[in-house]
């Protein structure tokens, strides 16, 4: 099914960019991308490349009961990230070097981690890691 906003968002991920939607009329950013601006209802919507910096609102490590097609990924971590631009999204979290996620804390700073285009294709979602800054 044709869905340009989905495809453009995913093309951004494959290029290593986290795109957030920005209204060409009122200038407000919003996530997830919409078909009309939720603030002014404009149909003229564009993209803004996020700095990829934000805080981790919450996270979990799923250890059992993966959805179909995700069984081999277990265990894996998911988090809700509040970006500094004022929008938020659900993302995967990069494991620590020991393969666990002990370094993650609620309200800690996290940053977007670009992944290789081949990884972004089967799993078109954003990845985050603890902030270096």
């Amino acid at each position, binding site marked *: 099914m044709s*869905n340009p906003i989905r495809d453009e968002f995913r093309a951004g991920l494959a290029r290593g960019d986290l795109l957030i939607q920005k209204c060409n009329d009122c200038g407000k950013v919003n996530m997830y991308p919409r078909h009309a601006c939720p603030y002014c209802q404009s149909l003229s919507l564009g993209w803004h490349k996020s700095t990829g910096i934000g805080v981790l609102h919450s996270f979990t490590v*799923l250890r059992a009961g993966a959805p179909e097609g995700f069984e081999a990924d277990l265990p894996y971590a998911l988090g*809700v990230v509040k970006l500094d631009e004022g929008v938020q999204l659900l993302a995967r979290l990069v494991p620590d070097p020991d393969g666990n996620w002990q370094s993650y804390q609620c309200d800690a700073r996290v940053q977007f981690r670009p992944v290789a285009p081949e990884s972004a294709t089967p799993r078109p979602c954003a990845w985050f890691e603890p902030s270096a800054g």
Partner: protein
Amino acid sequence: MADTWPLHIDANAPNDPVFVGVGELPSGRYPERNFIGDLTHVGLLALADARMVPRDVDTILLIPCLHSPFDQADLIFSRMAEELGLLGHLKSSFMVHSGGSTSDNAVRLASGLIASGHARTVLVLHCERWGSADLNAMVTMLSKYGIPNEWEAPTGLQFNAIGALITRRYMHATQSSAADMASFCVTLRKWAQLNPNAMYRGKPLTVEKVLASKVVADPLHALECPMLADGAVAFVMTSAENAKVRGLDTVRVAGSGGSVSHYSVGQEPDLAALGWATAARRAYEQSGWGPKDAQIAQIYDTYAAVTTIAVEGLGFCKPGEGARWFASGAADPGGKMPCNTNGGMLSAGHTGVGGGTALLVEGVRQLLGRAGPERQVTDVQRCIVGGTGGSYMDAQVLLLERRTKGRPS
């Protein structure tokens, strides 16, 4: 513009919509039962409880099943009119659906139909066959329902992970301990020991046992997650005038409030608050009630944090104290504010969209004084019912009040 307004009907109006009967079949794994059979039997139980027969019903509302789209289609396309012998008699039959909050919305809808005269007597039916369904197929289905396909499905999100995201944030925001969270499950299990229809009757639980079970989605342990169950519940609503003519005790809806706070779990601004404070304020403003005006509560409980957040929003305890409030025994049998007196979804069984309906039915049953000698709470006049659907997208509050022969009792 004000976001609350009064009910346009008062308690003494002849068209005030009221509950007059409930029915339920045991929850758990019942492969020997079947979908249409259970719907038929539970409907007849609810009608008998209301001292009615099928031909007293003019409208049937169906609460959806999730185990099969084909069985769900039978709900959409009036099969129960045929099964109950109502062809040519029934005015209307249709399905209502907002996931876990369906029962709250079904009550609003039935109330509106009755108050306006579009219906006089409404039978609301639910049956789920999750306990006997293929578990892997249900996990896959539940990983696609209520999760935005474009934005969140690619992460591998599923239902326990959603519960875990809420639980983690709640524990962080309130500094609640793992033992505090587990104590909620123990409270429910105590109630389940008193409910012959509960899946986990005869299976006591301790905090230690919960915390010793394996972690499935940090910080959630396996025994903090609901078990999919077969089950069936039904209730009957009619006009106060019709109930009076028939000499029936009733339960009226004193008010309701709701708040839709997200669709995608990743778009919830505060996973430790959700929509509960707004929903509660709206319900209290509509009814003139406060949290101290009810004696019991029945609140959706797929995960402890879902309910601890709700009781904080509803004002049963101070903000941030919900888990410790449950740990204190406040909601236990004999506690100052009994909650989820059927054992809730975590101990009576998660019957899908019907889990919230079973809680609603338990509230009505308690108000009618029909909860049986083991778990009937004494002197119950008012009950607060709370529901939520999808990825806890909404908070819905119904305020229910007992009437005896049309009067407060």
